[in-house]
């Protein structure tokens, strides 16, 4: 008896906590019935690979949101980093270019945070618009550098194409390289979030900036760190992105920010900051990928996909608000 009741209540909490997850499961079940190929290993690999750039950026964004902020400039950053890396491949070689790109990601994050801290834009809404402006500027810079051209990796690179090809297509055992990068990132970031002083500081900053500051928590350093993490993860995302697509255009990152925020929020990280986890974002990102994967397999047009994505975002926030009130 008691056991049953407990099971029931666990199910209830799960249902409450993960209503969206259940919704997605329904979608998955429908898809696998209508389109049996959904359950093939090919599709799993497929999902694993599409998951790559999105989850990497989303992990970074998770920290920004945990600290109570938001970063819309991932769109611009991703493009700009890709352009920089592309430009550097010839002069300094592929692997150095990757590292310089990652360093630039950190730099952009650092810059974003400084603008926010210096101006005292300590609410999410302010950060939203400032990073939007910065995103536009980053895209503009990227286009100034690339002169608006598609930058193509395969040209003059046949000899040294391998490093990117390895990132884009390589496997270690059953796992794609991008998945391994993801595992590596999640390990470090989860450790950072749950085990380190700065990770806790980030959480406290998101939970209550004022109280945290009074308690001697370095809130400004936390803000800088989350934006830098986001920048670095975006840069890694950019590298995985370009190694898959092998080209760089400004179209590559349009709409990225909404997908990323969608992933973080659907995972159950609280938009107001302080609550949530990078682990949850994995679920969120998986959901985002599954939505488009399922819909593509079901042959649903891009229009319906947009409508659904927006609606899911609204419903997720709404449910979250209901849970908290």
């Amino acid at each position, binding site marked *: 008896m008691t056991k049953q009741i407990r099971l029931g209540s666990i199910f209830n909490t799960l249902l409450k906590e993960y209503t969206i997850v259940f919704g997605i499961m329904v979608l998955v079940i429908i898809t696998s019935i209508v389109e049996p*190929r959904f359950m093939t290993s090919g599709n799993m690999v497929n999902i694993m690979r599409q998951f790559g750039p999105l989850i990497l950026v989303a992990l970074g964004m998770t920290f920004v949101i945990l600290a109570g902020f938001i970063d819309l400039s991932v769109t611009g950053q991703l493009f700009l980093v890709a352009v920089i890396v592309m430009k550097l491949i010839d002069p300094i070689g592929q692997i150095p270019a990757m590292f310089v790109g990652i360093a630039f990601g950190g730099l952009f994050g650092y810059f974003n945070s400084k603008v926010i801290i210096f101006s005292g834009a300590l609410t999410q809404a302010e950060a939203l618009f400032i990073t939007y402006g910065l995103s536009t500027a980053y895209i503009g810079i990227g286009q100034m550098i690339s002169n608006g051209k598609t930058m193509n990796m*395969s040209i003059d690179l046949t000899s040294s194409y391998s490093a990117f090809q390895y990132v884009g*297509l390589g496997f270690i055992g059953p796992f794609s390289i991008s998945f391994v990068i993801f595992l590596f990132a999640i390990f470090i970031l989860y450790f950072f979030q749950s085990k380190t002083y700065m990770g806790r500081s980030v959480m406290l900053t998101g939970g209550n900036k004022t109280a945290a500051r009074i308690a001697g928590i370095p809130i400004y350093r936390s803000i800088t760190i989350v934006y830098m993490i986001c920048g670095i993860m975006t840069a890694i995302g950019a590298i995985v992105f370009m190694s898959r697509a092998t*080209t760089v*255009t400004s179209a590559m990152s*349009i709409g990225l920010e909404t997908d990323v925020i969608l992933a973080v929020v659907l995972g159950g990280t609280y938009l107001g900051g302080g609550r949530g986890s990078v682990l949850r974002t994995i679920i969120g990102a998986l959901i985002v990928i599954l939505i*488009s*994967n399922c819909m*593509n397999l079901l042959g649903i047009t891009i*229009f319906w996909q947009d409508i659904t994505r927006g609606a899911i975002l609204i419903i997720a926030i709404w449910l979250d608000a209901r849970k908290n009130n």
Partner: protein
Amino acid sequence: GCGDKTEEAAEVTEVGTVEETETNAEATVAETGDEATIAFICADMGNPSQAYAASLFETYAKDYNLKAVVFNAAGDAQLEASSVQQAIAQGVSAIYVNPNDINAILPALQEAKDAGIIVGMFSSDVPVGSEDLRDFFVGVDDNQAGVEAANAFIANFPDGAKIVEVGGQAGHDAQIKRHGAFEPVISNSNIEVLDSQACDQWSTDQALAIMDDFIVKYGDDIEGVFCHWDGGLTGVIQALDAAGMDTKGMFLVGIDGSQSGVQQVMDGTQDLTIGQDFMEMSKKSLELTRAVLDGETVTTQNFIPLMLVTPETIDDFTFPEW
């Protein structure tokens, strides 16, 4: 009331003369051989092909004793209209419009005509019935590109085949025409289009993701892919590679003739790119402008032939700059 009307009437005749380009005494006398400023109104400088076209205008204008300014409509129809107006305000002699939305641009074109400016349509023409709002059109026929693509498939697969279509940016003029012209031709053949999906943007990554999913869904049934642009086809090839499918054994068709497309044809992965010759298009536009400025009559509709770049014909082409 009355005064205005006469003024308007006068303008109308003026417009007429410009279009016929014979008897506009003012223009011919004053501007023959003189340097004139022209404005290229780019639909979206974020789009590589359009940015390339813009740069061509800037480079080659001086060959025709012209000076080019570029306006960026950034994919926005409002901005495009206001760019035209700003060009008018700057007193340019000619504008070339690479439209985001051919209907939305018409009122602005009317203003340009009213101001006595030469109007050239670039890449996409005005809708039927509005031809007198422009002096000439230079471009490739996107409908033709769709038809060529379909014909290529039909020629390659005389016994029929199964293919998929990865479309360009949903709602973009080129995407609409390429798909619209491809579809009836291919459906009259024995080739089956398994699936067709457009992208949100002209984004390689989206083409890749869609192709990924097509592969899951149709697997080895896919014998060919029509992708609306070469950059997208790059993604398609990546997806096929990743799935371990033999790209060389498949019939892949793209449009644009951009660096990636030509390179892919060279590599033997892509079988055909239907190239748009932007160089020719730009030069032709400038040439026509000079002619109109010099008072000559010009043909109003100028389709620049498509270049069909295949492994066989690849040697005839100079490697593109975009």
